[in-house]
């Protein structure tokens, strides 16, 4: 999938850096064709980005239909379709749109909060009473939800680029969360240092697990899909063991750890009422760092070459085994950071629910993001928005939150089956153009 990406995106290995002269050359080449021409070609040729946008659109349409036609009020209205067809259609429309509006209000922007803001006497009281914060709360929540998805998504995307499938983001997440939590309550350190130590601890906690997977693959040939799945079980039960023994919060009988010290909390970015914290910046920095690593450094070149053709990489003198270990170590660390971001950013203690399904959602995020860092950022923000908006949607329209899971699954389903999307929208396959290009090149 990733090979078919359009020429534009910054992480395309061949596209030159912004400062180089080749960029200008590329620019002038593009300007020779009209904008409309480019637009038409890029849509007609059905490249991956087009497919993804259409996949999301299709999923939203189908999700809306599903939502409307499982609603009892709508079904009742459709029962009287022949006496009042208008009512039936508008009822279905309202239900579907209502849910999406609530989802939007919960994840991006809610006009009611703005109205409330302007009803306040002065701006200072508005800020003081938290009305301003309420305006930005949906966006803040989206970022908070996106943070672990982004980090764990990168943890799947990097091995994907190097030809491996990391199913173990879940276990690596737990590894990072355990170590970050332990360092959070077990040691006492000054403010800034404590945060850094815990974050590093999260990285190490995940990286160790990733390293084990890489080392097993390099030394014994054990397939990473098997080992990561098994480690998921191991870490799940290790967490429950630890929470019932050494890490149990004093005075509690359920499985929960002590709170981490406030010195270890990731700082909030815009005051204490908005939950958005430095973890989001850390995740964005990691995405940028991964892009730099993959497309601007020698090790990244090696990782990608191994991912595309390990035999040729070996013949070219690359150490394939060492790269496997390194890739899994970094990937594990990234998933571990996701754990530490959840613990230090929002939860402040680890329990059975802390890991949620982040490690598995990460696989869908990485898939949707085509395994590229920028793609993973966009995909994680989209899924983060779904997660952030779902509670409000349920509260306002009594649409079950599960519809969000259905949406995510539909998106991934369509992304995984590009021919299906192309068939629906009658796009020409990108391949046709490529074949003509190649034969033309061969004859030139």
């Amino acid at each position: 999938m990733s090979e078919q990406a359009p020429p534009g995106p910054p992480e395309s290995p061949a596209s030159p850096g912004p400062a180089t002269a080749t960029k200008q050359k590329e620019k002038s080449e593009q300007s020779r064709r009209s904008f409309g021409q480019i637009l038409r070609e890029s849509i007609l040729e059905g490249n991956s980005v087009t497919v993804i946008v259409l996949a999301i659109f299709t999923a939203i349409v189908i999700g809306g239909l599903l939502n409307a036609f499982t609603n009892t009020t709508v079904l009742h209205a459709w029962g009287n379709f022949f006496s009042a067809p208008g009512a039936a259609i508008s009822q279905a429309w309202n239900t579907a749109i209502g849910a999406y509006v609530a989802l939007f209000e919960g994840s991006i922007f809610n006009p009611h909060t703005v109205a409330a803001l302007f009803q306040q006497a002065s701006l200072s009281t508005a800020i003081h009473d938290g009305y301003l914060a309420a305006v930005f709360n949906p966006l803040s929540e989206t970022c908070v939800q996106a943070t672990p998805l982004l980090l764990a998504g990168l943890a799947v995307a990097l091995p994907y680029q190097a030809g491996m499938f990391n199913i173990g983001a879940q276990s690596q997440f737990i590894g990072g969360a355990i170590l970050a939590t332990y360092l959070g309550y077990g040691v006492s350190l000054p403010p800034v240092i404590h945060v850094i130590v815990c974050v590093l601890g999260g990285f190490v906690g995940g990286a160790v697990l990733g390293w084990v997977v890489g080392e097993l693959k390099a030394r014994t040939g054990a397939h990473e899909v098997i080992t990561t799945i098994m480690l998921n079980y191991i870490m799940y039960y290790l967490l429950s063991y630890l929470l019932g023994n050494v890490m149990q919060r004093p005075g509690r009988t359920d499985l929960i750890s002590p709170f981490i010290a406030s010195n270890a909390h990731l700082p909030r970015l815009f005051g204490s009422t908005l939950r958005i914290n430095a973890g989001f910046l850390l995740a964005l920095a990691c995405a940028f760092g991964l892009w730099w690593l993959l497309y601007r450094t020698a090790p990244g070149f090696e990782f990608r070459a191994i991912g595309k053709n390990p035999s040729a990489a070996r013949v070219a003198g690359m150490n394939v085994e060492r790269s496997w270990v390194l890739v899994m170590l970094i990937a594990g660390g990234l998933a571990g950071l996701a754990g530490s971001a959840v613990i230090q950013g929002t939860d402040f203690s680890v329990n059975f629910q802390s890991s949620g399904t982040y490690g598995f959602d990460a696989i869908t995020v990485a898939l949707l993001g085509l395994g590229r860092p920028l793609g993973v950022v966009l995909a994680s923000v989209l899924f983060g928005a779904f997660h952030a908006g779902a509670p409000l949607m349920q509260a306002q329209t009594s649409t079950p939150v599960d519809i969000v899971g259905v949406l995510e699954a539909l998106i991934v389903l369509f992304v995984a089956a590009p021919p299906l999307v192309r068939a629906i929208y009658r796009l020409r396959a990108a391949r046709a153009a490529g074949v003509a290009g190649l034969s033309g090149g061969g004859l030139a």
Partner: protein
Amino acid sequence: MELELKGITKRFGSLVANDRIDLSVSPGQVHALLGENGAGKTTLMNILYGLLQPDEGEILLDGKKAQFTSPKDAIAAGIGMVHQHFMLVPVFTVAENVTLGNEETRPSGLLDRRKARRDVRELSRRYGLEVDPDALVENLPVGIQQRVEIIKALVRDASVLILDEPTAVLTPAETDDLFRIIRQLKDGGTSVVFISHKLKEVQAIADTITVLRRGAVVGDKPPSATEDELAAMMVGRNVQLKVSKDPARPGDVVLDVEDLTVADETGRVWVNEMSFQVRAGEILGLAGVQGNGQTELCEALLGLRPVSSGHIRLDGHDLTHSTPRQRLHAGVAYIPEDRQEDGLVGAFSVADNMILDSYDRPPFASGINLDLGAIASNAAERVQEFDVRTQSADTPVGTLSGGNQQKVILARELGREHKVLVASQPTRGLDVGSIEFVHRRIVRQRDHGVAVLIVSSELDEIYALADRIAVMYEGRITGIRPPSVPVEELGLLMAGSEVPGAPAQAGTPQAGTPQAGAPQAEQAGAGESS
């Protein structure tokens, strides 16, 4: 049956694969279609076989217009095709494969296996095919599998048989057998369309030769046309078929292989106490039938396969147990046998493939940062120097033709500092023009003082390039000879008999000048190995 194609035109997008092609095949004739890769031969035959529909033009059978919308129509009209890649079910017997798609049943509804077997036996006898109807296809050698394909076509009463690059997968002996079969078919009245880019084969078997270039017919020639004439028509310019090279001026020993033994994971010994030396400025050609340990030897030389015993030395430094990277840095340039599997990352751009083994060193990297500017300018330079035909240096290398892919590998390997060049089957599957280019570059490296080891199963190539010829058989060298050695003697050495002969002394240019070795150069002909 008289077959005629009139004004066949086929376009793929903006590319014209076939441009108003006229062709007529008379009954009982072998009509060769000669052209480089991408000249449109296969497209034309796919149209004739009903796999593709022409945009313009018509197909005439005995003067009557025919239209084929699927291979079924073509088969019904008496046209059979043997594809380059066989369409056989490996786990079925020969008889089952032959009836597949054309099953005859007895009145009870059961398959008539007896008739199928009888058919195979009967055809096998008539054309001397020697195929056992009950053998499992997967157990048969490639040459016999091809005969099964031919039988498949004959059972369906094909009167025109299309053979698409039939010799690409065959050994020389199998090719001779195939030619015998083709002649028998011809005598039986079947017409054969023989698609190839190999000049000598075409000359040997064809009654008429039609040359295609860039989708259009360049002209018809009788088989008596010279190779130079045919090659010039094919490529569109005069081609240097004989590699012109001065006598070698060998220097010191650069690559020294001593008692080398290499085994695979199962313990099978592929290279057995093998010793040879390659000197600076000479080309050692390693001949031999494929599968006698050449692949394993090359892998051991590059460090991809562990050495059981013995030594590999480069300029006196022991490299026996070094990693591939250490060897590349020490000055080994390597052209792998399977360029798509081992030589290139198909999804990477031409530019990235040109730095595949030097991406982590200056000027392409400083520290761990890649210098994209240096990579781009290196690519631009090399694309020009090695005449790589590509839309741009950012084009994925997997979309280039085989010849251009090989040029990318050459550009990369020869662009590095190197003392020895190990080239395994360097021109396999390439067209005449690319072969000429690759051979010239290899000879130029030799003249610059590089020690060159050419591993090839094509004797033509060995004769064309080698200053000394070593023959490998079952992991051993059965003899080292000067390039003037007669082909019969090489044949014996390749079959494992250690014929006593004048062994070529390392560093002594034999047979005077290559001009004196002209008979061999003639033999080398186009050198168009498969």
